[in-house]
């Protein structure tokens, strides 16, 4: 087993693109779920708004890449209205049901054959990121940095842009939550009726929280799309939301650092487990006597099994995660 490689991969994972887009998406989800108490299970759809906003500039509109941002924001607002208008007045679990369903429908729509000329069907959209690539000061083929933090020039630009965005959004969320707006938002999470009796329009605040969190999530989708150079519908399946949620809970809800560290830690654990299992099964299935423990095609399933188990155990034994405050996590919809 090549431990050196495994450890390098693991350390690289905590600053890699996967950790970045998870951190950004988790920052958005934190506003909704951590601070406002909105159970948004459709963050993947908000991410898809961003990446399809970018992709459609080339695929459908034929305009510059940077138009993708306003288009994405427009998509986010439409999506937030679709899920928010019917559910934000109701109990928390309705929002959970509607967001998860909407996210799934969004994915089915963008991958459908009928709408292929708009969204590119199951293959998705590629060839939209030329303008972004031209801005890259690094040589795509060359390797930069020192072990274990080595990235090709192609990836390095996204890593730098990504961490800049993480820093900006972290600062923004931190400031936002210290502002009067943030205090109202947290008040809604604690006691909606009390906030309402103070004359605040709870419904409007919730909607704002949904949109702001969604816009941050949108940027996560854009980072993913720019790094991959393509937009794939199946990158936005409902499980992606749940993995981001796991990362968020791992770091600690309602804490800015929680979103970022949670995302890094999630990928460190994930990449480590993935690498070790792949090494174990590389030369055929792992066996104890006649009993096949695991074979290489099953590695993915085992990793995600651990994610699910981890989410359950975290919610049960340490709902505040690493940085959170237990009293802030006493979420109860009734």
């Amino acid at each position, binding site marked *: 087993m090549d431990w050196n490689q495994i450890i390098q991969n693991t350390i690289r994972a905590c600053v890699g693109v996967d950790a970045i887009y998870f951190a950004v998406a988790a920052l958005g989800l934190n506003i909704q779920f951590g601070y406002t108490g909105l159970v948004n299970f459709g963050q993947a759809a908000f991410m898809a708004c961003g990446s399809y906003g970018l992709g459609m500039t080339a695929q459908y509109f034929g305009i510059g890449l940077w138009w993708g941002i306003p288009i994405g924001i427009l998509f986010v607002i439409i999506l937030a209205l679709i899920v928010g208008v019917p559910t934000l007045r109701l109990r928390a679990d309705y929002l959970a049901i509607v967001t998860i369903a909407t996210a799934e429908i969004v994915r*089915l729509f963008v991958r459908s054959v009928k709408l292929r000329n708009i969204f590119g069907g199951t293959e998705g959209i590629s060839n939209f990121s030329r303008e972004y690539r031209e801005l890259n000061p690094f040589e795509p083929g060359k390797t930069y940095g020192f072990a274990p933090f080595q990235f090709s020039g192609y990836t390095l630009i996204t890593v730098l842009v990504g961490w800049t965005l993480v820093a900006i959004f972290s600062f923004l969320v931190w400031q936002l939550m210290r502002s009067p707006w943030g205090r109202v938002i947290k008040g809604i999470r604690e006691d909606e009726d009390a906030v309402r009796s103070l004359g605040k329009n709870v419904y409007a605040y919730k909607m704002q929280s949904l949109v702001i969190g969604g816009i941050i999530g949108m940027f996560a989708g854009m980072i993913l799309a720019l790094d991959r150079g393509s937009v794939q519908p199946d990158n936005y399946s409902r499980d992606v939301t749940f993995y981001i949620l796991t990362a968020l809970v791992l770091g600690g809800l309602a804490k800015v650092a929680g979103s970022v560290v949670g995302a890094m830690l999630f990928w460190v654990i994930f990449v480590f487990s993935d690498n070790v299992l792949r090494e174990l099964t590389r030369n055929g299935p792992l066996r104890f006597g006649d009993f096949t423990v695991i074979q290489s095609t099953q590695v993915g399933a085992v990793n995600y099994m651990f994610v699910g188990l981890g989410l359950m155990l975290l919610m049960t034994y340490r709902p505040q995660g690493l940085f959170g405050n237990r009293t802030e996590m006493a979420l109860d919809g*009734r």
Partner: protein
Amino acid sequence: MLIQGRQSISHFWLKVFLTLLCSCVAGIGFVSGSAKAAEDGEFSIIASVQNQTLVSGSTSRAPLEGVAIKVTKVDGTLIGEAITGADGLGKVPVPSRDDYVIEIDISTLPDGLVLIDATKQKVFINQDLFTTNNKRVTFFTGQGAEAGASTIERILQRLSDGIRLGLIIAMCAVGLSLVFGTTGLTNFAHGEMVTFGGMIAFFLNVTLEIPILISGPVVIVLGGLFGLAFNWAIFARLNKRGIGLISQLVVTVGLSIMLRNIYLFKFGGRTKQLSSYSKQVNLELGPIGITPRDLTTAILGIIILVSIALFLQRSRLGKAIRAVSDNVQLASATGIDTRKVIKIVWFAGGALAATGGIFRGLDEQVSFSMGSDLIFLMFAAITLGGLGSAFGALIGGIFIGIFVEMSSLYFPSELKAAPALFILIVVLIVRPQGILGKSQRVG
């Protein structure tokens, strides 16, 4: 109290483990480990697209030109694409003897032609199927079956399909709704209880070769125990620890991810067929084509749902369940043992979900995600019927099933689920308590 809590934690671990083990053990038989070393030589996949036409009673076949074929690995990585030539063949070289998925792009078929077997749009090639270096896969197309049928016939056919889907949704959703009513829990892992039924049915029916008529009841009982295990190992304990309902909801999400991946681990990513009644010819009942198997499951489904309704309406226990579902405190004050009722509800919910899983497995096929694909329709059904209401779930399920199938007359079938979301949203705006829900504040 504190000491008791500590003890239950260590027990909890043990029991989580045991529950996992139980759910795994049943599936161990699925694993078939065969990894053949790649052999030398050039491999390729040849797709052949043939159009069938019925000429004076006999079928004639002609090659179709210009159809796009795509070969991917099982995980979705693209291997190659080809367009069929005048001989109807498209050749895609592949790097090695391996598992592949061959997909035909139906949007490139000439107008009016469809795949004869719509489920064959993607064909899975196991590496063992490479008997020579070239593997040939044939796709048959024909005039759309529905293109020739009149509108009324198409509507009736869809109605019959919709009723069957609706019965399955209703069956699965009753448990979901009752659990919600009695405990307040929105259980996102309910779909996995459906899959559990399908998986165990597959194990007994295909691996152990027990006919479904005998193995079915076993599956149903195991499904009930599985539901009971959910409550016993997880949710009863979470309640005891005073963990809020939203946190519990997140736990069900984790549970759902974990179970789905256990199924994937044991069963693999393919859809597989139950062996009993897999090959049947359509009975033509007037304009509707239905296999005897589907007719039987539909009738059984109706019988089951009617008995549930009668049970809830007439029996003492059924009344107790409805009382707890209505108002836990009040029911408890009138002397109903609410914890016992909750256990019964979990058992019944699990058993019904497993039944739904068997029916779905017979109707379509068994796959690791068969339940989680349905969960969203179940939620639409119970929201429509009224969260917590068992009758609501029955009515809502059947309505959603029919509506979804009917809508595919006008909607592409890949977007089947979209109309259900539309219903969900309209219901939540117009009448958030659902058809049969109590008109109370739910906000």
